[in-house]
């Protein structure tokens, strides 16, 4: 067998293909810049420090949950119940804030998030049930439990919580700082720790991962627990900001936003590749989109139409990239 040619492109068409592959990688960042420029031109309120701060604060929960779910998807696993779980945790936290105070509420929320993640992790990671089936069931069940616990909205939380939700530090809301901390942590985990490498390996080849001594089941369990905890933190932050926990609407549709951001970030549904930077850029794109359209007084429906279209286009570009890579 002849040795593989070293990575230098030899023919013009091969070089062209390599350039094209890299170029496609720039599409998403470029699209984000174009989008921001568009809004900057069309609304005076967009390109301000306060607005950007607001974007981060309003979407703190999405950022946190997306970071956790991105790690899960890189390993090839998914959690569709995050939106409903957020509703459930929010309600639990809210009720506990009213009945037991701040500590009770926060600990209760974390316990529920941990427990739910543990359940998912055991059923999916250890017993090897289908992730889509289990978390889809969870999506329905969690929402039901939330509604059962709090048929009417829960509101009026202790001052500490309200302060947490609306207070600022150095111009950025507390919850914004927490979101940034989570985002940074997720980038660090994926790119510099052994755990991060294991996640990708499991996404690429579970059998090979097992045979090099990676504790596959334990890693999957951990990822689901982290997701549950991330949802819990996100729920606390939103509930603090809203000063209420509406059981019927809290977190509805969040899983769609989260998954869209992750897929835009280049993580395929089967896992095994992806960069956390790109995922966070995906979140930024979607949140900027909604923010800008709102500033332009355009209806929320358009956000969904556009983000759905962008997702399909992004998927198409990724397939194109894959074809170009293989023939190069």
């Amino acid at each position, binding site marked *: 067998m002849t040795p593989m040619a070293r990575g230098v492109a030899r023919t013009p068409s091969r070089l062209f293909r390599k350039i094209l592959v890299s170029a496609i990688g720039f599409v998403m960042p470029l699209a984000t810049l174009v989008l921001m420029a568009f809004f900057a031109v069309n609304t005076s309120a967009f390109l301000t420090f306060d607005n950007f701060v607001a974007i981060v604060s309003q979407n703190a929960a999405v950022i946190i949950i997306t970071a956790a779910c991105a790690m899960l998807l890189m390993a090839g696993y998914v959690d569709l119940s995050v939106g409903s779980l957020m509703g459930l945790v929010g309600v639990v936290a809210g009720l506990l804030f009213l009945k037991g105070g701040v500590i009770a509420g926060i600990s209760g929320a974390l316990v529920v998030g941990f427990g739910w993640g543990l359940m998912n992790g055991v059923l999916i990671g250890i017993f090897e049930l289908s992730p889509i089936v289990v978390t889809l069931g969870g999506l329905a069940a969690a929402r039901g439990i939330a509604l059962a616990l709090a048929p009417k909205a829960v509101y009026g939380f202790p001052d500490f919580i309200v302060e947490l939700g609306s207070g600022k530090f150095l111009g950025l809301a507390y919850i914004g700082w927490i979101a940034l901390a989570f985002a940074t942590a997720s980038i660090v985990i994926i790119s510099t720790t052994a755990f991060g490498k*294991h996640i990708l390996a499991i996404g690429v080849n579970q059998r*090979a991962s097992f*045979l090099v*001594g990676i504790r596959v089941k334990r890693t999957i369990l951990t990822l689901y627990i982290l997701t549950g905890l991330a949802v819990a933190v996100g729920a606390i932050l939103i509930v603090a900001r809203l000063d209420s926990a509406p059981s019927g609407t809290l977190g509805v549709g969040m899983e769609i936003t989260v998954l869209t951001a992750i897929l835009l970030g280049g993580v395929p549904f089967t896992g095994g590749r992806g960069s956390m930077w790109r995922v966070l850029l995906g979140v930024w794109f979607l949140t900027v989109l909604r923010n800008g359209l709102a500033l332009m007084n355009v209806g929320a429906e358009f956000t969904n139409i556009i983000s759905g279209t962008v997702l399909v286009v992004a998927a198409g570009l990724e397939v194109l990239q894959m074809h170009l890579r293989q023939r190069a």
Partner: protein
Amino acid sequence: MAARKSIQLFDLSKSYGSVGVLRDVNLEFRPGEVHAILGANGAGKSTLLGCLSGAVLPTSGTIQIDDDEFKGFTPREALEAGISIIYQHFQLAMTLSVSDNVFLGDERQTRWRFLKKHEQERLTSEVLAKIGLELNPSDIVEDLSIGEQQGIEIARSVRREPRLLILDEPTAALGKHEVEALLKLVRRLAREVGVAVIYVTHLLGEVMKVADRVSILREGRVLWTKRRDEVTVADMIKAISPDVAATNAAVVRMASPGVLATFKDFETSYCGPFDFSINEGEIIGIYGMLGSGRTDLLETIAGARRHWNGTLRLAEEELAHHSVSQAMMSGVALVASDRIAQSLFASLSAQENLMMPHYSAIARLWRGPRKEMRIFNKVAGEVKLLPASSTTAGSSFSGGNAQKLVLGRWLVGIGDVRLLLLDEPTQGVDVGSRAQIYNLLRKFTEDTVGRAVLFATSDPEEAISLADRIIVLVNGEVKHVVDPSLGEAELMSLAQSVEVSHGVDH
């Protein structure tokens, strides 16, 4: 049924460039006869079958069927000419029924494209009866046993009334009883249905039970064709792989007095119990046919399967690991057999592929990219990796280099590997890389005290070239422990599960 003539091959040859794979093959396949074709790896069996089934276009020569002469086929033409081939890995639709599968791709339909289900089931029952398989046409395939599933593959072919049925290593995945059933079926197909059958296998015991005629292929040529009652197993072994004096006599290996690993009453799901000890610096080969338990034994020692019974001691310490990571910490590491499915991370970089088992060990939080690069470069140099590029994706490496990369995982120097296990160390690897891998393994045992290699192979040449001592594994039993000077022919005869009479006592 009209009397059929034989199918004949006249001077059939196939070359790839200047490499001749088949040379002037002359063979005759008679209706009602089971014709066994034997040969070592690379002798040309697959190419020959390919020419008949339409997968390969011969370079010269002709295939004669009745009064027609063919220079070659496309798969469709081969089917139309009445040639049907059944491969080792069946292609059945598991969730469909028996009759669905028998008619898959050739369904009976009404004018309006509805399936004629009853008619298909009726015809399926007829075929099943013809070949003696008792199945309900509406049974779902995935509920059936492997033997029955293979029977369905055969029913599928037989329904088209082929004149030539080719079976390529059909018993590789079957248990003892299923093998008997298959052999019975094959005999029936030939004698009662009148099909000409080509039976390709490594297992000489089966040949003695089912074949009427035997041909041996060696280096692309037909060595001889004889009637089965004219040959013995010993004749066949000698013909397939004549005694080759140990070509690696030049390699001088030091025998070390110290014992490194001891197996006592060692038993796994398929193997043992047995007692054995491995000395420091030794390379032990496990030689056995497919299904002898080689992989089970290695993977159990590596911690990838249910824990063993009995004891395994490594350098005075009794091993008790229950997982792969624990095994690695005790100094036991495995290079698995199918590297694409079980070892390589195709889309990850070469460096990641190399370092994957060690990330937990080198740093909990901060990995050092520069340190990793240094390690990569050192190992890439040692194994002569080509391309020696840490960023190249795993899938871009050729077979030999991919295997060297995977082997390199355990030469990194992190987490002292003392017992290195390899399952089919050079499967699908070119000759040059093979020699390099053998040298790397020898170096591994010589560089540091207290190391040994245990590998499993189905290639007798590999066992003899690489091992200091060879364990012959037959159906899970450690039947013999031999010296490589035995020669390939003797080694092969020892691994057969059928009694072979031979003059030499070992």
